[in-house]
C-alpha cells in the first residue's frame, strides 16, 4: 500500500502559483513525499517555505521564531480541523438568501506533549478559542533509554472527543507513539486522533503511519532524514529551547 520514503537528498523545485512559468519561480527545498493515506503534508507554497526558512535559520531571534512558528501552527491547525466531521446545515443569510453550509460536529480537545508541544497551544487557541487542552509529559528513562510517561492530565471525557495531539518535532517518534498509546488506553479511538506536527523525519513518520493506520498525521514538512544522534536534518535545532529559553 505504501512506499517508504527514501533517505537521501530532499527534492528541490520551483515554488509558486501554478500559472506562473517555471522560470519565474524561485527554487527551494520542499517536503519529501510519502504515499500514506493517513499522512497529510501542507501544500508546499512559497509562503509556507518562507516561514519554515525563518524558523530554521539560526540567526532568527526568539521573538521572530515564536511569531513565525505560530503562523505555521495556525496553518496546521486549520488543515487539521478539516479532518473533523461536519453535517449539512441550511441557513438564510442576512440578505435573505439561502445558503447550504455545514456545521461542525463532535467535541474536540488538544493534547500537548510537553514541553515543545505546549508551544503549539497558542496557535490552536487562535483557531479554537475555548478548546480544552490536556498535557502529557514524556521523558527518556535514564536507565533504559526508552521514552517513559511521567505525567498526564487529560479531560475526563476525552474518550468522547476528537484529539488534536501536538508535537512540533517528530524524529524517531518515540514520544508520539507513547502518547498515542496513552490516549488509546484512555478510550480514545485511534481514528479520532489527529497528530499535528511541524517537521517530521521520513523514517519516523512512515513507521508511525504504519503502526497507527487509522490515525491522521498533519505536518508542514517531511525533512531529509536523521543524523547519528537521531536529530532531524536539516531540522531547526531544539524547538522547545528556541521557543522558550534561548
Amino acid at each position, binding site marked *: 500500500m505504501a512506499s517508504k520514503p527514501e533517505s537521501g537528498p530532499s527534492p528541490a523545485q520551483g515554488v509558486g502559483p501554478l500559472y506562473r512559468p517555471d522560470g519565474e519561480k524561485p527554487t527551494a527545498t520542499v517536503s519529501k513525499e510519502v504515499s500514506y493515506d493517513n499522512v497529510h503534508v501542507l501544500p508546499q507554497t512559497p509562503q509556507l517555505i518562507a516561514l519554515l526558512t525563518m524558523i530554521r535559520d539560526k540567526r532568527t531571534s526568539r521573538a521572530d521564531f515564536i511569531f513565525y512558528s505560530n503562523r505555521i501552527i495556525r496553518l496546521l491547525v486549520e488543515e487539521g480541523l*478539516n479532518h473533523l466531521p461536519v453535517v449539512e446545515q441550511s441557513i438564510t443569510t442576512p440578505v435573505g438568501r439561502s445558503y447550504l453550509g455545514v456545521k461542525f460536529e463532535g467535541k474536540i480537545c488538544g493534547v500537548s506533549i510537553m514541553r515543545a508541544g505546549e508551544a503549539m497551544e497558542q496557535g490552536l487557541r487562535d483557531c479554537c478559542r475555548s478548546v480544552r487542552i490536556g498535557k502529557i509529559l514524556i521523558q527518556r528513562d535514564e536507565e533504559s533509554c526508552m521514552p517513559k510517561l511521567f505525567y498526564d492530565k487529560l479531560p475526563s471525557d476525552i474518550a468522547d472527543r476528537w484529539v488534536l495531539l501536538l508535537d512540533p518535532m517528530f524524529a524517531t517518534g518515540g514520544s508520539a507513539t507513547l502518547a498515542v498509546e496513552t490516549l488509546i488506553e484512555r478510550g480514545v479511538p485511534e481514528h479520532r486522533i489527529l497528530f499535528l506536527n511541524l517537521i517530521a523525519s521520513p523514517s519516523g513518520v512512515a513507521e508511525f503511519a504504519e503502526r497507527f493506520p487509522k490515525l491522521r498525521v498533519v505536518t508542514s514538512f517531511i525533512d531529509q532524514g536523521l543524523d547519528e544522534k537521531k536529530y532531524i536534518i*536539516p531540522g531547526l535545532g531544539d524547538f522547545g529551547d528556541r521557543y522558550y529559553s534561548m
Partner: protein
Amino acid sequence: MESVSPLYSLSTEVRYSPPWQDLSIIGIAGSSGSGKSSVAMEIVKSLNLPWVVILVMDSFYKTLTAEQHQKAHANEYDFDCPESIDFDILVDTLRDLKKGKRANIPVYSFAEHQRQPNTTTLYSPRVIILEGILALHDPRIVEMLDVKIFVEADMDVCLGRRILRDVRERGRDIEGIIKQWFEFVKPSYTRYVEPQRPISDIIIPRGIENTTAIDMVVKHIQRKLQEKSDNHTEELRKLGLVAAEVELPLNVHVLPSTPQFVGMNTILQNPETEQEDFIFYFDRLVSILIEKALDMTLYVSANVETPQGNTYLGLHPKGTVSAVAILRGGSCMETALKRSIPDCLTGRVLIQTNESNEEPELHYLKLPSQIEEHATVLLIDSQMSSGGAALMAVRVLIDYGVEQQRIVFVTCAAGERGLKRLTAVYPRINVIVGRIEEEGEPRWIEKRYFGC
C-alpha cells in the same frame, strides 16, 4: 505597456475609464481685483462636492532670476504679462489631469519669487476651475476648457480691492501697489486681459454679487457632472456584459471549499451568530485569505544555516508588502492582516457607492509613500459585488505607479460577474476570493463586523 501573457488575455481590449478621466475644466479670467477667486470659491461652495477643485494660475509663475527678483522687490517686474507665467507646464498639467493621471502642482512662494522644491499632488478631480487673469489667454488651454468665464468689475473697484488685499495679506506698501498698477496691471489689462472677453462663453459683471450668473454656472456644472456619472455607470454596465462571456482566469484564486472553510462561512452568514463569534470567525477566515495572498508576493532562494550547522535551501520574501484598504469594508480585514504582518504599511481609500445611481465615488485617498516600489500591494475589501469600487481602487494604484502584477486584490466574497469584469480590465492582477457569492449581493459583512 507591458506585454500580456496569452494565458489570460482577452481577444478584445477592455478598458476602464474612471470618472475623473473625463475631466471638465472651467476657466475664469478677468482683471486683478475683479473677484475671480471669490466667484470660483462661491461655485465650489455651491456644488459642495469633493471632486471640484480650484487651480490658481499664480502657482505657475516662473522662477525669477536674481536680477528679476530685485526688480520685483522694487515693484518693477511685470507679473501681469503672459511671459511671467509658465504656460507650457500648465498645459502639460491640464493634459495629464484630462487623461485621468496624477499631476504635481508647483508651489510658488511670493516672498522668494521662486518655485518651491515641494509640489502639491492633484488627483482625480472631476471638475477643475482654473482661475487667473490670463486663464483664457493660451489657445492650447482655451481648447481644453469646457466653460470660459470672464469676470468684470469697474476698474476703480478693482484697484480698491487690490490695495486692500495687498496691504492686508501680502504686507505691501500702498505706493508700491499704485506704482505697479499703473506701470503693469492696467496696461496689461488693455493688452492681454480685456481681449479674452470676446472669446468667453459667460461674462459675469459685478463678480461675486452676481448670484444669478453664478447660479447659472453652478447649474451647468451640475448637469455636466450628472452626464459624466451616467456615462461612468453605463460604462461599468457594458464592461460587465463584455466580461460575462469569459471564464474566470487562472489568476483568480477561489479558496477551496474545505469543511472548515464552509463551516466558517456558514457561521458568518447565519444571522443568529452572536457579534462576538462573528468577529472571531471573520478574523480567522481572513487570516487564511491573507496567508494565501502572501503566496503571490516575490520570493528569492536563500540558504540558511540551522542551529546544528545544517544548511537548508529555502526562500526569503523580497521587498515590502503593503496593503491598501478600500473603506469601509476593507478595514474589517486589518486585524487579520496584522496577525500575519504586524507592521504592514497600510493605505486607505474611501470609495462610496452613490445610492441613487450605484456609481462608485472616490472620496478620500491616503497611500503609503513610495508605494510604487513595494513588491506587493494587497488591496483588501471584505466584499465585492459588481466590482465598481475595486476597479476604481486598482486604477488609483496604477495611477500611483504600482504595476498591475504587483497588486493582489483580497476579498472574502465576490460576485462572478464582478470578478470577470475586474480581471478583464486588469488581466495581470492577482485575486484571492474566499467565496463566490450570488450576483448583486448587497454589502452586509462590514455592517455585521462593526455592528452598525
